[in-house]
């Protein structure tokens, strides 16, 4: 099994240089063949990852193996335990779907993008199977770098360059936090292997330092508030299959690192407050992301904001698991851990589906601006149906997969009042309310997105002519749609399958409470029967249909109960003039119009949203205009001050140029002395 894994990793690394083969002499056809080979290889590797993950979850973990490559701190080691296997499965499923999509559309992509894609996959897989800190960082940084190349791929546009630069800054920030975090975890002994770190879990101020560094690093990479600014900028500019992986899987890699470093390597003896930062940041991200998704007017940006929301929900689950473990409520800890893991998997699948669907829309209608789309359900019935499944899951509607994860998470939150003192209980009440608010806001955002893109009348002639993609692209949508339905019906078996992953996190599993057809919270508390719910819904639907059918009269032979067709009633509004083929565009709600209630209710307070009506004075013939927009507070409160600090630091550093040689030599010497003092202090302190 490990051989298969290593082969897949090596294959991906071989594919990178293959993609960069010089191709001009042989023409474009070779380029297409090379791109197809690379994406086909990526598909195979993704399937191998999913297979290895599944096999390890069923059969048990693989012990650490040292690679014949030695780093400066010892050999690079790989191992696959339950937690790695769970995320490998997630990576494999989402990776396979997006590789299928790439096979359909990315034949003519520039070589730098084709080459970075397998490196991106390999970096994520290496992060997951790393068994020591150095390998983990190596994989994590390879992933960041490769995805930066993919984001910067179309660098001829200024906004893409800006997004790529911001993305790189946040990736560097994440690294700058995670490298010292792993150093502090390893302690003075300097053994970076996870087994050694588990022997001596951090305590006291070391634990607090690890917590602060890991939370900051993970927040920057997963897009937790307030370090989420890059997500809505960077995810949309990459090609759709890459945005799908970045949103669905790469953010999960950051959460995996949080779970690995804080819950697994942090050890079971951490106090209650150890989980609180994740819970608080998670709740803030959930509401913030969902609310911003309601304001955005570009399809992929909207989906990226919805990713912030779901990452927040998973972070709440991980933080709660840590809190429950600290409070010795191991059954509930397993519930929270299971909820986080299940929601991570479900989100990876349905977000991949939604991003690929958005890619289909962009290919079909040549835009992702909500205000230039509309009525695509007629030209793109396959895409519409698949995206509707993803929308239902993202809106957490039963019996789809999003609801299963959210149900478990809410149950864990509803049981969390048993922990801690009054302050913690009040915090839990607030977080429960915020989680429910986020779920409802996500439903509103998804309805708005589907309504603007697929329903209503076409807003541009181009969107009236959109058609479904080739058969391969349809398969790339149907696969995750089917998985979304399946995962929604089978949360019990999935939780049982992920028992080892839960054991790694909280030393307790959902076994016995997660059965084939039902999930129990435990202690006689609530239960969720997804298959029962689906059957009940189906039975009600059939009964309603049959009852209506029995009463319906027969109108003629050809169409016994076919509805009549006519112009829309539209409140009695006058019919549009004949030159407006798709009706009067001004009578159809716009993206800003659909966002108006939430912009006024919550947006003005949280997002500094504003509206202004530009009303022409009497006699003027121009049309009135409504200007609406918002500003992300983290831009004003975090990025702008940081930019000022940077400018000041640069201005000061400029003065170093004019130092005399004596002073210039003093600088490295002073740095050396300071570092030696730090080492001496650390050695003595630990």
């Amino acid at each position, binding site marked *: 099994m490990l051989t298969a894994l290593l082969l897949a990793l090596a294959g991906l690394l071989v594919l990178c240089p293959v993609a960069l083969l010089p191709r001009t002499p042989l023409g474009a056809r070779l380029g297409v063949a090379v791109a197809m080979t690379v994406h086909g290889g990526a598909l195979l590797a993704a399937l191998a990852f999913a297979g290895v993950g599944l096999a390890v979850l069923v059969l048990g973990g693989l012990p650490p193996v040292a690679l014949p490559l030695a780093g400066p701190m010892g050999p690079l080691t790989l191992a696959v335990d339950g937690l790695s296997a769970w995320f490998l499965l997630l990576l494999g499923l989402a990776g396979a779907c997006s590789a299928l999509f790439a096979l359909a559309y990315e034949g003519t992509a520039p070589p730098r993008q084709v080459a970075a894609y397998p490196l991106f996959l390999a970096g994520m897989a290496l992060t997951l199977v790393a068994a020591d800190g150095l390998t983990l960082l190596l994989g994590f940084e390879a992933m960041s770098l490769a995805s930066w190349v993919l984001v910067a791929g179309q660098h001829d546009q200024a906004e893409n360059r800006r997004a790529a630069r911001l993305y790189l800054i946040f990736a560097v920030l994440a690294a700058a936090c995670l490298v010292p975090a792993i150093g502090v975890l390893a302690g003075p002994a300097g053994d970076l292997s996870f087994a050694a770190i588990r022997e001596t879990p951090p305590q006291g101020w070391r634990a607090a330092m690890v917590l602060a560094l890991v939370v900051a690093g993970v927040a920057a990479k997963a897009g937790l508030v307030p370090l989420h600014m890059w997500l809505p900028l960077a995810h949309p500019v990459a090609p759709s299959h890459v945005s799908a992986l970045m949103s669905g899987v790469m953010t999960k890699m950051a959460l995996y690192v949080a779970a690995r470093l804080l819950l697994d390597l942090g050890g079971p003896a951490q106090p209650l407050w150890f989980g609180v930062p994740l819970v608080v940041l998670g709740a803030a991200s959930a509401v913030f992301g969902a609310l911003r998704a309601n304001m955005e007017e570009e399809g992929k940006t909207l989906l990226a904001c919805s990713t912030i929301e779901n990452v927040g929900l998973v972070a709440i689950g991980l933080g709660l698991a840590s809190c429950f473990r600290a409070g010795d409520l191991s059954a509930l800890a397993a519930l929270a851990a299971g909820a986080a893991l299940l929601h991570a998997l479900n989100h990876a699948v349905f977000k991949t589906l939604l991003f690929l669907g958005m890619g289909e829309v962009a290919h079909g209608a040549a835009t992702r601006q909500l205000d230039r789309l509309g009525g695509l359900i007629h030209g793109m019935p396959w895409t519409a149906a698949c995206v509707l499944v993803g929308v239902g899951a993202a809106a957490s509607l039963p019996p789809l997969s999003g609801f299963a994860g959210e149900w478990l998470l809410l149950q864990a939150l509803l049981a969390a009042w048993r922990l801690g003192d009054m302050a913690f209980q009040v915090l839990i009440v607030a977080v429960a309310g915020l989680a*429910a608010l986020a779920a409802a806001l996500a439903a*509103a955002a998804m309805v708005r997105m589907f309504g603007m893109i697929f329903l*209503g009348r076409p807003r541009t002639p181009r969107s009236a002519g959109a058609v479904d993609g080739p058969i391969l692209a349809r398969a790339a949508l149907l696969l995750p749609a089917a998985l979304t339905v399946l995962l929604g019906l089978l949360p019990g078996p999935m939780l049982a399958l992920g028992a080892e992953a839960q054991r790694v996190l909280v030393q307790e599993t959902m076994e016995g409470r997660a059965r084939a057809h039902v999930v129990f*919270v435990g202690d006689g508390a609530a239960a969720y029967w997804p298959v029962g719910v689906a059957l009940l819904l189906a039975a*009600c639907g059939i009964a309603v249909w049959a009852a*209506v059918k029995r009463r319906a009269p027969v109108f003629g032979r050809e169409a016994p109960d076919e509805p009549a067709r006519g112009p829309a*009633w539209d409140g009695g509004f006058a019919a549009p003039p004949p030159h407006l083929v798709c009706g009067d565009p001004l009578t159809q709600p716009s993206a800003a119009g659909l966002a108006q209630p939430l912009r006024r209710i919550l947006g003005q307070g949280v997002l500094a949203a504003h509206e202004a009506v530009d009303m022409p004075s009497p006699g003027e013939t121009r049309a009135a205009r409504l200007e609406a927009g918002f500003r992300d507070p983290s831009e004003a409160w975090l990025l702008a001050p940081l930019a000022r600090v940077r400018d000041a630091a640069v201005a000061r550093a400029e003065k170093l140029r004019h130092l005399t040689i004596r002073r210039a030599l003093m600088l490295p010497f002073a740095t050396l002395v300071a570092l030696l003092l730090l080492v001496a202090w650390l050695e003595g302190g630990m």
Partner: protein
Amino acid sequence: MTAALTQLLHIALVLCAAPVVVGGVRWLKARMMGRVGAHPLQPWRDLLKLLRKRPVLADNASWISRGAPYVAAAATAAALALVPSFARGMGFAPLSDLVLIAGLLALGRVALALAGLDVGTAFGGLGAAREMSFAALAEPALLLAALCFAILAGTTSLEGIAVTFQDGSVGLRVSLMLALIALCAVGVAENARIPVDNPATHLELTMVHEAMVLEASGRHLALWEAASALKLTLWLALIAAVFLPFGTAPAGFAPLGWLIGAVLWVAKMAVLCLALAAFESAIAKMRVFRVPEFLGAALLLGVLGAILLFVSTRLA
């Protein structure tokens, strides 16, 4: 077997009752305003009439317009099948989870909003945006009420909550009072009643629910009407099951107990309808952007209820 029988009787009872609940509230309101009012069975007659009519769809209506009414009616009926009425131990009792019921209601709401957006009319979009926004505030309030119940009963299963509250060990609590008010406010908003929305209006600017079904006709309109009647019944039955649990027949085969339970359930529902009608007659409709304050108050009451519970468990 008994469980299945109880479940079937429950479904038959609530399905027959749902249009009468709507008609009853309308009739009571009319009487309170000094009008004669339509017969309480009028919604039933309307439904049967609409089912016989041929629906007219807009030219550009997609399969969403045709499928959504069935989804909404089925989801609401499924949710209503889970709320106990006259007896415990129904066949679907293990499924009857408060969070799941909220999810099924959300499914119906999303179907309604999508149907409102399907044709691309101004009112449909306006209604859909408002409906989803109000729900965004109503849902946390509902969950916080569920949190109060979960703290007291140890479960979010409606059956478990009702049994715990029926045996009287919980007693009278301020928190439950606050949760009741929060739940009522959420119910009023969810069912598009005054002061959030006016179910009788056809003045477009104030519409929320009606705006989304303007394009529906024939059997589709009948299904939307049925779904909204089922939803009103569900909320009243939910409040009756949690806060007025007395007289409900225990699990098992007990025809006499069922009869008493059914009579008592009808009486409870009548009282709740009367209360709703009186409330609606006494209060004016709010401006649309005052509704968040109304629901925000419900949310705060839910928070307050939970915190009071923590305080009281600490004192006890």
